[in-house]
């Protein structure tokens, strides 16, 4: 046996991969397509420019690495390796072709109820695994649900994730992309839990049916207004003490309209599950495990097998797909 010091281990890890071409550019990282030299397996290399941060390794990178090192599940993106190079941190992730946002926006694709059920099932399985491992994702949206070539959906982008275990700990309410942000966060709650992820899943469920974002607010204030117009303004009975939340503001009292008026073509069991995800009171909101046990997943139709799910037409150069997406996020390809 020999022992290997950290630096040597790092150099050996680094040598295992070859970077090929840039496929995306983000605010804090660039993403490259690469290969694992020994096997030829495609990987995604997420290169985080630590040199730009005067406090060293930044919190997003730490959060992502910390969470993904512990999570191993078919519906959570696999972090294969981590290594540093000069002042960059490199995450080696499994390479995934597309994401749910691109699927939703591709007007050539037609979704059957069985397809939606399949995506929901995979999302909830991945999320339940996070939650039972004490991890809050805090940024669920179609763009962060990546899809592998075999159709498996995987939760990705854990840059806002953190471990959760102490219900009394204060956390920032500035999490989750606005359209998917739970009402307690919009009202500035500092103590919250897994329910924030479930609200986002409810919004994604609705988006899969509507093929357009369900609650697209222009600002944080407009987000609440949009939400209340769609789902009714909560009363103290719906959600006790919510008027005590730090950023509470009073809104016009919109009536609650039944979801069936907007979601006309869908089954009662799916409406029931969606309603339970979009419950204002976070304590009453359905959990990931309860959702997985909901009749919607037991009733017909059976969820589509991942391989058979609709997918955007395969581009000869997958890298370009992702690149196009990053540069022009508003348009479908």
């Amino acid at each position, binding site marked *: 046996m*020999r022992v290997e010091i*950290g630096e040597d*281990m790092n150099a050996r890890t680094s040598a295992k991969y070859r970077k090929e071409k840039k496929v995306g550019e983000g605010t804090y990282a660039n993403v490259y397509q690469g290969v694992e030299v020994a096997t030829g397996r495609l990987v995604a290399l997420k290169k985080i420019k630590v040199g730009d941060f005067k406090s060293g390794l930044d*919190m997003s990178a730490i959060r992502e*690495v910390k969470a993904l*090192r512990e999570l*191993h599940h078919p519906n959570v993106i696999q972090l294969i390796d*981590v290594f540093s190079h000069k002042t960059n941190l490199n995450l080696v992730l499994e390479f995934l072709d597309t994401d749910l946002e691109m699927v939703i926006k591709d007007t050539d694709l037609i979704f059957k109820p069985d397809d939606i059920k399949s995506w929901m099932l995979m999302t909830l399985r991945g999320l339940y695994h996070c939650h039972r491992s004490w991890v809050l994702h805090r940024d669920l949206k179609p763009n962060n649900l990546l899809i592998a070539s075999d159709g498996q959906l995987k939760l990705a982008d854990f840059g806002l994730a953190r471990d959760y275990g102490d219900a009394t700990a204060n*956390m920032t309410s500035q999490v989750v992309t606005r359209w998917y942000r739970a009402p307690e966060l919009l009202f500035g709650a500092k103590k919250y839990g897994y329910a924030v992820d479930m609200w986002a899943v409810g919004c994604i469920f609705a988006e899969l049916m509507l093929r357009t974002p369900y609650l697209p607010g222009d600002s944080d204030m407009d987000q609440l207004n949009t939400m209340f117009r769609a789902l009714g303004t909560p009363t103290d009975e719906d959600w006790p003490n919510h008027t005590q939340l730090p950023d509470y503001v009073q809104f016009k009292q919109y009536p609650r309209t039944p979801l069936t008026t907007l979601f006309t073509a869908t089954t009662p069991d799916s409406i029931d599950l969606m309603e339970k995800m979009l419950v204002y009171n976070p304590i009453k909101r359905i959990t990931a495990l309860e959702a997985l046990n909901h009749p919607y997943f037991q009733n017909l139709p059976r969820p589509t097998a991942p391989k058979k799910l609709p997918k955007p037409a395969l581009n000869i150069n997958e890298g370009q797909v992702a690149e196009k997406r990053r540069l022009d996020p508003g348009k479908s390809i």
Partner: protein
Amino acid sequence: MSQAHRPLYEQSSQFRNWRFSREKLHEIRKLTNQAGVERAQTNIEAEQVGYRSNKQVNYLSLDDELALCHFYETKIDTFARHFKLPNQVKATAIVYMKRFFLYNTVMDYSPKSVMLTCLYLASKTENKFIQVEDFAKPIPKTSSQDILTYEFVVSQSLKFEYTVHHPFSPLYGFYLDAQILNDNISLLTQVYSKAMDYCNTSLYTDLTFIYFPGQIALACLKLAAQDLNWNFAGYLHQKYSDEATRLALEAIVDDIIATIKARKPVSTDIVREVDRRLIYCRNPEKDPSSLL
């Protein structure tokens, strides 16, 4: 998928990569120390080429290294208190330092600098982030850059596995659980608080590498129960009706108790002596002021 049926803890990096037998732990450290001495020796001799040096270098033994590390581990507590960091951050920093010096030696990396970086890094990974300037300011002869220099080196040696499981959460679980079975909550609360102290002591031993956090917590509960006359055996009986399980668990618990009781702080005389010797056997390759 057979993995789904195994306990969730077995997926954790702590279970997969940071769990050893006592023998294995000793073997790794022994090899790390030997390799460290060889590296330092080679480079010190290379540095002296062309010089005539009669200096007899007295390299650090494994026990010397452990004494020094142990001393700096206890310093983490002092700094954590100064920055008003929660116990969780302190505990994680101590484990980071232990993990780091499993595969590295103090002849390569100054234990004081590594200690500071471990605490700074733990403040990030445990969500209690402090600005690096604020962190470095009150520490004499230490700049922000000194703290950041080792951040990658430490992270690499931790295999970028930042999650650490401590006995505190399971202990809290036992405390809640025992409330269902006990009516004297006030005594139980005293036992819990005392057990917490033992958990803190356990951080300075090798137990984190050897046993599950829940097992360490249970042993700390037993130690506190002995001090305060709480019926631990009764609790164990109620929880585990199967005698074989109970016996197996008690053997583990007793070994943990013996380890916690045997822990003593290292004497400052020894630390001072080792620290003085370290000046002459630092690996010049890692020393910015070296000629190499």
